[in-house]
């Protein structure tokens, strides 16, 4: 099976570096693309003829410049090309309203970035493990991905 990419949507360079380091250290070697704000993420995902294949997992921060995480999520779910891609919200807050809004807009999971690095690393690696290896992706999505890649 072709290994699937991860799209990390994260504006904070420190969190980006820590997330990438956590993935590497836990031997998750899937290619990671980073978008630094919501607009860049949508451009990456929706630009026709883009050479970036659709990701197998999106890690999404909520508080982002330009277009925020919830809006990105709404647009992903509204588009048939991205509606079934697993999206896990990976953010600072555990406010009830953020968690509820994320699920309401179609998030597959919600993980709070822990301050303890060991926990942070474990969270990131568990996410990669589950969504990229164990979880069965929606057939429509796989079908679409193949169509998109080999017209």
């Amino acid at each position, binding site marked *: 099976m072709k290994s699937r990419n991860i799209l990390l949507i994260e504006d*904070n360079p*420190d*969190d980006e570096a*820590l997330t990438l*380091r956590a993935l590497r250290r836990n031997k998750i070697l899937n290619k990671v693309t980073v978008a630094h704000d919501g607009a860049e993420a949508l451009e990456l995902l929706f630009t026709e003829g883009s050479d970036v294949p659709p990701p197998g997992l999106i890690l999404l921060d*909520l*508080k982002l410049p330009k277009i925020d995480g919830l809006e990105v999520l709404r647009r992903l779910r509204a588009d048939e090309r991205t509606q079934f891609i697993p999206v896990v919200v990976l*953010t*600072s*807050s*555990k*406010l*009830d309203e*953020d968690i509820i809004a994320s699920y309401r807009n179609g998030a597959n999971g919600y993980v709070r*970035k*822990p*301050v*303890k*690095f*060991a926990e*942070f690393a474990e969270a990131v690696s568990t996410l990669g493990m589950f969504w990229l290896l164990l979880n069965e992706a929606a057939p429509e999505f796989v079908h679409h991905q193949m169509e998109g890649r080999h017209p």
Partner: protein
Amino acid sequence: MVCVDAGGRIVLVNAQMVRLFGYPREELEGQLVEMLVPDAARAAHPQHRTGYMADPVPRPMGAGMPLAGRRRDGSTFPAEISLSAIDTDEGTLVTAAVRDVTERQCRQDDLERAIRNLETFTYSVAHDLRAPLRALGGFTAALLEDCWDALGEAGQGYAERIKAASEQMAALIDGLLRLSRLSRAEMNLHAVDLGAEASRIAGELQRGGLDRRVSFVIQRPIWALADTPMIRMVLQSLLDNAWKFTSRRDDALIEFGTTPVGDARVCCYVRDNGAGFDPAYVRKLFNPFQRLHTAGEFPGTGVGLASVRLIVERHAGHTWAEGAIGEGATFYFTLNAREIA
């Protein structure tokens, strides 16, 4: 107060109405009451008036909708109006007690603005304040993992301190958010057996600390009207504290029970025979982030007891404590919450 007859004509006004609406008495009496109604609501008013005449039970006007009065100069003010009827020789008269609530409206607006600001603040604390801490903790961990030898013994110690401090600050921020959430959260009152809840928590503590020898004496049942998740937090904090502060005793005893106090509906206590505290500082115990022990003696953030007080006060109760150094501590709380009819 304005008195109006069945035809909607003003029969009588008191001095307060003259002041409130800015009309001399003689310009009001004999006129249709609609002259006091703002333009936008005037056309519909006679119909409401007739409706009230058909069933003249005392009630507030407007069914919860915001009301306003119209002054002589055309300006309006937010009003609260209650209606009632009296039977006289000249037929039924309706009296309307009108109150200007401008000031209350302003206070409410201020309050709503303050709450909105607080929510913005909370949001920012939850999202922005933790991020730099993650960087501090994360990169210090990276330093320890990748540069262990280069750091040397002193450097490793410093890095460990940075890591521990960032984790402590994260715990403080979480405490702050918890307090702010508790003060706003909606309450749902149910009958709760506090004794059963305390036993469950005691069981968890025992299972999590198999190296400790602690006896629990818990009264059961203790029924109280409370918000279940909140009151669990109170019991958890108090029992966690008792557990923590008895950690240096091998004959630790923790009691939970009730004691009759004044006219309180329920007064509970949690007593331990642990480290206790200096009674000179008893007044500071429940303040947020206040600690009476150093982190080296007993770890903590100083949020537990502050949350206890906040929750108990939301249940119309209060909290106090007794203790002495080396002689244990007793924490009391009363609950007086009533079902809102």
